[in-house]
């Protein structure tokens, strides 16, 4: 800086002469190439850039040439393309073959017709879409998000005279039907699952201004959450999918009063007295009649984005409540039996003997073990001395805290806390010895509810041998399995729990281990009804699930059965009956804390319910699929599954739904009339940009050269 100021102070003419000297000097010293200085180049030097700037600038320019920034790459319309993961309700989408993008068609009407029987919801959804373009749509896809534990059994799409219907066939046949239809140029699609819970079916050649009706029927098992049942019907179409300011100008408006007209009718037979019934987000009319509730959506033209959620709270009594539904089909009586636990069970009412088995192998290291320890420490600290317990940890070897289960006295609990606190994750996963110790006589107490709680994140080797071991030694104990983390062998764990007449809990997210275990431990501390049994007065009872678990607080029991209508006694007028029994906790009788409970239920055939047969069949298929994996007779089981699936319209491992064209002639006509479409070819050579960049780079090169000459000149003058 000092020098700079000094330079400025030099009179102009001296500086000019100085410059001339430098120029001469340079001329003598360097060759002609260096002496291209002229008046113009001096002016360019006046830009005041230093060489670092020039290097950076030139690098940026070079980079830009190679990285062809495409100004149009991020066009606004792209946001309207639909990602399948965003689909939250039934949607008909146009598929653009050139870009591979999906765009939604206008939804005109949605109609939900729902029948709820206990925890079984049969949903009939009708949706109407409209192609508001003046162009044919050559390929479209109908997509519907399925809730967990739901199964589609019927699908029908109507476009003018064309009817496309889903049919269940054995997989091999379905593929043949599909291939044949395809070779004839007809619309036929395999009904696919894009991801586990999105159901899709394709349709081709939609006319301009055509109306498409989709009818889909599915069955859904509702979950009992804490103290209520909930039915959720997906409604939300994400905001951006609704085309802005496009009012429908429908050609057919006679029975459509709004572009988003919707109707929801729910026919609810809860099976229990209801304490409360409400819709979370919408105004509804509720009519009560003879054990049924008819719920109707009030504002049919108001289409908001909230899912329709209906909740009902059964009134909980002091004794278990039984709900029973039946359906008759093809000479058989299908029944759905639900047992609701009583509303409150005091903690100490049931004598319990708990054996905790904890996996402390190397893979549990970190969060998994820390959280498991926390949950376990809390559970131990909650025990009182009426209960017995033991703790076993295992990695490559099993170690148990006590040689036999001990009363939960304060001393013993302190010892257990120390034992658990000292867990350290290392070694392999060898679970068989640990299970063996837990099932030994020393660790089981008669007259007590023996609960074995087994926690692991590991995979299991010789599964079949361990199942055998459990089946043989479990006695009257209950085995509860908890799988931790995504890598755990859920199949083994759920099966083990089934053999052990307990439950299976999968905790996939490691940060929820503590919370989920805590909830399970507290539930297990409140058994409501144990040794549940269902006894029929008819033979040939096919019950699913085969093993009945105990009833805990906040967890209803669900059993489906199939029985022949004409029982062998010949008394065809007697519809038969069955008895549900078990032991419930009794807080008054201290010496006899268990009290037997039973209820007889007469079958009645007057109820007009549907879907129970299908529910029974899908439970049965699930069981048989498990058997298959356990090494059951492949051929027999496969045939049985296919037979059941075809009879009850189920999509299974061996059956598939294929959408078949019911009116091939109409489809052929549509195809012939459909204008062919080709993607637009490219539209420019793109020489302009290259030319501009090239010229810029050449002028930059020129500038760098000038700058260099000038600097050399300066330094040589010093």
């Amino acid at each position: 800086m000092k020098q700079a100021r000094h330079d400025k102070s030099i009179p102009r003419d001296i500086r000019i002469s100085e410059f001339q000297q430098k120029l001469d000097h340079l001329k003598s010293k360097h060759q002609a190439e260096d002496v291209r200085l002229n008046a113009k180049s001096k002016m360019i030097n006046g830009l005041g850039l230093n060489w670092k700037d020039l290097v950076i600038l030139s690098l940026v320019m070079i980079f830009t040439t190679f990285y062809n920034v495409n100004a149009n790459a991020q066009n606004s319309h792209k946001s309207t393309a639909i990602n399948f993961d965003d689909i939250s309700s039934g949607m008909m989408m146009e598929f653009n073959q050139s870009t591979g993008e999906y765009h939604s068609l206008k939804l005109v009407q949605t109609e939900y017709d729902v029948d709820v029987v206990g925890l079984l919801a049969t949903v009939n959804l009708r949706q109407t879409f409209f192609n508001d373009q003046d162009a044919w749509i050559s390929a479209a896809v109908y997509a519907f998000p399925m809730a967990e534990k739901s199964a589609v059994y019927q699908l029908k799409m109507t476009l003018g005279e064309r009817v496309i219907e889903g049919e269940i066939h054995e997989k091999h046949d379905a593929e043949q039907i599909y291939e044949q239809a395809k070779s004839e140029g007809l619309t036929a699609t395999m009904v696919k699952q894009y991801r586990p819970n999105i159901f899709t079916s394709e349709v081709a050649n939609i006319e301009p201004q055509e109306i498409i009706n989709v009818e889909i029927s599915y069955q859904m098992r509702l979950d009992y959450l804490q103290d209520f049942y909930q039915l959720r019907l997906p409604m939300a179409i994400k905001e951006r999918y609704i085309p802005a300011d496009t009012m429908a100008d429908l050609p057919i408006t006679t029975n459509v009063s709004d572009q988003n007209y919707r109707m929801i009718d729910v026919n609810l037979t809860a099976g229990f007295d209801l304490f409360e019934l409400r819709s979370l987000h919408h105004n509804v009319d509720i009519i009560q009649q003879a054990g049924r509730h008819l719920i109707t959506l009030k504002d049919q033209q108001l289409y908001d984005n909230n899912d329709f959620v209906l909740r009902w709270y059964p009134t909980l009594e002091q004794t278990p409540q039984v709900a029973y539904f039946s359906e008759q089909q093809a000479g058989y009586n299908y029944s759905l039996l639900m047992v609701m636990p009583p509303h409150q069970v005091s903690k100490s009412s049931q004598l319990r003997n708990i054996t905790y088995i904890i996996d402390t192998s190397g893979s549990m290291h970190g969060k998994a073990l820390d959280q498991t320890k926390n949950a376990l420490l809390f559970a131990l600290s909650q025990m009182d001395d009426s209960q017995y317990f033991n703790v076993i940890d295992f990695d490559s070897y099993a170690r148990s805290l006590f040689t036999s289960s001990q009363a939960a006295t304060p001393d013993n609990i302190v010892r257990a806390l120390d034992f658990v606190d000292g867990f350290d994750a290392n070694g392999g996963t060898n679970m068989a010895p640990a299970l063996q110790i837990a099932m030994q006589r020393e660790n089981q107490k008669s007259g007590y509810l023996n609960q074995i709680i087994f926690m692991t994140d590991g995979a299991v080797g010789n599964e079949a041998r361990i199942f055998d071991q459990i089946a043989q030694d479990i006695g009257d104990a209950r085995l509860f399995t908890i799988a931790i983390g995504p890598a755990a062998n859920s199949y083994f764990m759920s099966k083990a729990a089934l053999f052990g007449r307990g439950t299976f809990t999968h905790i996939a997210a490691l940060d929820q281990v503590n919370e989920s275990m805590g909830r399970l431990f507290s539930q297990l501390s409140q058994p409501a009804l144990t040794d549940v049994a269902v006894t029929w007065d008819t033979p040939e009872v096919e019950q699913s699930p085969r093993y009945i678990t105990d009833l805990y607080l906040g967890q209803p029991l669900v059993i489906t059965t199939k029985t022949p209508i004409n029982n062998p006694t010949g008394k065809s007028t007697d519809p038969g009956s069955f008895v549900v029994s078990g032991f419930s906790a009794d807080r008054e009788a201290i010496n006899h804390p268990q009290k037997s409970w039973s209820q007889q239920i007469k079958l009645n055939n007057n109820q007009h319910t549907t879907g129970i047969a299908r529910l029974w069949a899908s439970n049965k298929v699930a069981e048989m699929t498990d058997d298959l994996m356990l090494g059951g007779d492949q051929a027999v089981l496969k045939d049985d599954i296919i037979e059941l699936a075809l009879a009850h319209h189920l999509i299974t491992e061996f059956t598939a739904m294929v959408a078949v064209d019911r009116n091939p002639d109409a489809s052929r006509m549509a195809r012939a009339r459909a204008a062919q479409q080709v993607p637009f070819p490219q539209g420019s050579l793109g020489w302009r940009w290259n030319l501009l960049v090239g010229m810029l780079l050449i002028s930059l090169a020129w500038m760098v050269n000038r700058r260099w000459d000038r600097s050399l000149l300066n330094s040589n003058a010093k």
Partner: protein
Amino acid sequence: MKPKMINNHAQAITFGAKVAPKAWSTPWTILGLKLITAALLFVGSWQVGSSAYLLAKAHYAQYLIANAWQATLEDGQPHKPWDWADTFPVAKLSFPTLAETSYVLEGASGRNMAFGPARSISSGMPGDSVATVISAHNDSHFNFLGKVQLNDLIEIETIAGHFTYQVSDLRIIDSSRQQVTIKRQDELILTTCYPFNALQTGGTMRYQLTAQRVKSGSDKP
């Protein structure tokens, strides 16, 4: 002019003094600067050269294609414009109002469109009852397409004869959402990129011109 020059000298000298003077004279700096200059010159000339090449190709190929079309008209057989070509001219397209003429190649691939307008193979030919789709680049053979107006006439010559079309529709389409609809009627669809005179390319917007067949006296059936 002179005082300004002096002023600039002063700045230049000041600047030279600010930066450590020694650094400029080391052989490494000189080499570095030489390399940068060379790299810039190389990439720059390459860019200019490639755009010049594209334009030259587009322009001069038409002469060869014109010759091939003449040969085709004479013997009715397809002729390749040059030996290694995998396409051949199928029509001569003229816009009388703008005095523009070009020769249409078969197959609207990017490679063919570098040499001239090209016909989509899945579309029809003039005289058929299926639309003819011809595309070209908006910075070469169809750079005038934006100047074509409604009701202008477009003439097209094929082996089947002369056909006249009248422009009935001009529109801009988003090619990521829509495709060219080939209707079952004798019409001519010309497409090119939109916007015209854009520096950058590769966008999704297309300019589409639709012209309906006019049965004029000069038409041969």
